[in-house]
């Protein structure tokens, strides 16, 4: 089973190489989906550039007249968005590093190691996803309060380092995902390494992890997106303005009696674009076939 590993990098892509009807259909379908997917983004962008009071005019004026570039500046200076973004980035990056590391560790153990309690413990991992978090919010808050961590980033970052869930991102999901990906790898990889005297740690770090780059990239993207957009956690745990995140700032941009759609959309734009870019550039990691990575050492 190690032979397939040396095959073409992008699996299945070469099933049909000549340009054909299938490709045309695929292009047409994808172009249509892309067009629809771009509508809200286009609306968001155009609204962000509209003059106050003209945001909701119907029919939609897709190219605003006049174009108010200043909205972007004002939307981000009414509230201290430089601080908000710094905070958001800190949380998202630190939490994501932790989530990728700890979920892959746990996923590896559940997929590749035999140990007492493996089955029940794994069910327990899944079970933590099954209870709506609404009813655990207050007890969890009390734990963080007792640790003196209210109005710090700890409740938003530390759970990811302990492979437990915080807000929209579920580490249990990540563990399950890692486990499934580890389980698709042929077992003779570790057996051969063990015969060579490799420890579990080496098998994890040097042999299997490099083969799981797609899964790691996926967990990384999901974690980053969820922590970047997370609303409830920062709302509950953070109080000071200097600790706020961009998602809270975005929500704060809306007044009770006033449409501030142009400002809101300007912020929504700057919140969305980094994720789009990250996804765009990260896809080469999860599109990497088994072969490209990690096999060089063998």
């Amino acid at each position: 089973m190690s032979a397939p590993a040396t095959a073409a990098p992008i699996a299945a892509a070469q099933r049909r190489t000549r340009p054909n009807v299938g490709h045309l259909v695929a292009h047409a379908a994808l172009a249509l989906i892309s067009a629809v997917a771009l509508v809200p983004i286009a609306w968001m962008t155009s609204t962000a550039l509209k003059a106050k009071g003209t945001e909701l005019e119907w029919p939609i004026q897709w190219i605003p007249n006049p174009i108010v570039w200043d909205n972007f500046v004002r939307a981000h200076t009414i509230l201290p968005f430089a601080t908000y973004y710094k905070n958001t980035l800190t949380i998202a990056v630190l939490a994501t590093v932790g989530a990728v590391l700890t979920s892959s560790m746990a996923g590896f153990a559940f997929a590749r190691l035999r140990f007492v309690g493996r089955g029940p413990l794994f069910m327990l991992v899944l079970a933590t996803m099954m209870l709506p978090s609404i009813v655990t919010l207050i007890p969890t808050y009390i734990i963080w309060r007792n640790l003196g961590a209210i109005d710090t980033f700890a409740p938003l970052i530390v759970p990811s380092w302990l492979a437990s869930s915080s807000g929209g991102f579920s580490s249990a999901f990540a563990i399950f995902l890692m486990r499934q990906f580890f389980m698709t790898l042929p077992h003779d990889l570790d057996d051969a390494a063990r015969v060579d005297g490799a420890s579990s740690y080496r098998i994890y770090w040097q042999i299997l992890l490099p083969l799981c780059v797609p899964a790691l990239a996926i967990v990384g993207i999901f974690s980053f997106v969820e922590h970047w957009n997370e609303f409830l956690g920062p709302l509950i745990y953070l109080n000071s303005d200097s600790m706020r995140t961009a998602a809270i700032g975005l929500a704060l941009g809306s007044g009770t009696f006033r449409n501030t759609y142009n400002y809101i959309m300007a912020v929504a734009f700057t919140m969305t674009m980094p994720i789009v870019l990250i996804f765009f550039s990260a896809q080469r990691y999860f599109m990497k076939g088994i072969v490209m990575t990690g096999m060089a050492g063998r």
Partner: protein
Amino acid sequence: MRGALAPSLARPRISRVRLRENVDAYVFIAPWLIGFVCLTAGPMLASVVLSLSDWDLLNPLRLIGPGNFVEAVKDDLFWLSLYNTAYYTFVSVPLHLVAALGAALILNMRLRWINYYRTMVYLPSITPSVASAFLWMWIFNPDFGLANAAMDLLHLPHSMWIWDPDMAKPSLILMGLWTIGPQMVILLGGLQSVPESLYEAAAVDGAGLWHKFRHITLPMLSPIVFLCLVISLIRSFQVFNLAYIMTQGGPANATLFYVLYLYRTAWESLRMGYASALAWILFLVILAFTLLQWRLSRRWVYYEGELKR
């Protein structure tokens, strides 16, 4: 392979190897274990206590025994929201999977601009909800929406979509398909681990596209498909945002999903005890379906690297 390895080792060494493996495994799951004990287990246990209590969040709680569970059985809205949620789950989970799998297969092709297409299919999942709500309000608008324009093309009668109690759930399911991105990404990642040589061998045998999909792609991808099914079932049973943003549970409670009802019970009615009971009932429902999936998975999920005892 493992069978070949084991007998070659002497007995005492097996147990030492086994012990070693156990220790290693617990080191690997240590972060999770610590997190579970310190952060997750306490609140979960606390919610068990809450489910047996009457607690308005503002005053001391009062233990009342299983009364909340008895109340749930007699509660119309409990049954209605459970029905709404089950409807949503059982229709949307398969649809979601088929759509995501289709998208993943297409996006795994070697096409020009494929990187852009992939980003576009993922884009809806990261579009801020204010912006995507705008699009869907427009699509569903009964007077000039795109959905009714499509109905015209198909010579079908117009609908009020999310504003019609009978159509609201199907409309939200349709809208849910908008965010297949994450599942598509997972499946796409899974497709990378299907060895190309299998396809080549099949091609030599003259196998068609369907045959390759059915006998190579699907079995090799089955662990990942299983992952998607389990996760999306767990998530769908807890569907909340769609209704919270688009319909607030209406019209006429047609989209009052379970967790939305639970949310109202906890934070609006200030009945955290009853909400906790509802949460644990949902927990049991989801657990039952997950265990069922687990059982069934033995028949169709193929693990290349399965551990055998």
